């Protein structure tokens, strides 16, 4: 994560808050094997503005976005393991061969808005 990445994430979180909307933040907290993004990669899922950042794209990211929508509905964080090994035989260029643990948290519309 470069300074520019951090600025983009911070702005996305701040603009959702300024508009009075909750959003979700997904962060790669652990990886095993070969993965498209490393620990620390993050993705803001804002139901109105869409996505900021990336945790790797492709099927893995789709799983994360789905989980983010569950988190937005439940207001409770989730930790998921995205498995990129199973499709190894598929010869798809997106195959990486590793797993990554992603923590997805609810970001309330107001500071201290709870949900954790």
């Amino acid at each position, binding site marked *: 994560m470069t300074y520019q990445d*951090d600025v983009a994430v*911070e702005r996305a979180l701040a603009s959702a808050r300024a508009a009075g909307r909750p959003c979700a933040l997904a962060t790669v907290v*652990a990886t095993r094997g070969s993965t498209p993004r490393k620990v620390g990669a993050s993705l803001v899922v804002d139901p109105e503005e869409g996505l900021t950042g990336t945790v790797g794209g492709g099927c893995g990211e789709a799983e994360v976005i789905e989980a983010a929508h569950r988190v937005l509905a439940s207001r409770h*964080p989730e930790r998921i393991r995205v498995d990129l090994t199973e499709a190894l035989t598929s010869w798809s260029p997106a195959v990486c061969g590793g797993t990554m*643990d992603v923590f997805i*948290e609810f970001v309330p519309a107001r500071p201290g808005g709870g949900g*954790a």
Partner: protein
Amino acid sequence: MTQEESIPGGGATPLDAAASAALALEAVASGASAAAVLAVAPGAHAGSRLLLVVDPDQGERVHGTLGLPALDDSAVAVARAAVADPRHRDGLVTLPEDVEAYVEVRRPVPDLVIVGAGHIALPMARMGAELGFRVWVLDDRPDFATRERFPSAHRVMRADFSDPFRDVSIHRHTHVLLVTRGHRYDYECLVEILRNPARPAYIGMIGSRRRVRATFLQLLDDGIPKERLGEIHAPVGLDIGAETPEEIAVAVAAELVKVRRGGTGASLRDMERVEERYFPGGEGA
């Protein structure tokens, strides 16, 4: 640091991701470091976080809480150790009560101050931003120092070369590149930097070998102490035979990475002596 603020649990209000991101960004932009400790399991604690800000001048500040004073104590200790360890890598740790937490450290933002907004500044600003620098571009020509020309820069400023750094602070995380339209201006800016007691991480100045030699002689004449001349990277960049502005920017970018990370600047295959060791007829054959 004030004792009260350093007491873990003292920042007992919960800290969410948005507030934490804003605090961490503010910290690193002002030369401080920050470490966030985010509980990821078990469920009762998951999502709570603590942020430690370490400012070299003002000491430590704790924000947020993991919910229990004992947990906050160990989170602060973990965060403090992570900030102090230059080889720290972000990742998971286990705290007391079997709480698993993700620790993330942010260091002070390195600044790249490009003085002169001409043809080399364009690729340099882009590459600098991609390398994680906060890029500043200065020029006295309003047509050159424009936001349109430097969309990836943090700030694009009009500056008078007689007082170029009036609105930019030069500190130990600053990298300065002097590429103005005239060697005279580069020289004036260089003297300005060298008369300042703050020592930037990097000073680079464009110019031919002959020019650079004349510059060093002039600097001594102007009373700049000899030991400060060693801080100047001139001629600028690594030797890769750069000719175009983009190539020169690559040579300088490589030098910036080298200064930051260490390294020799040589080709790895030469350091590995690939030809000698791996090719048939070499010593390994």
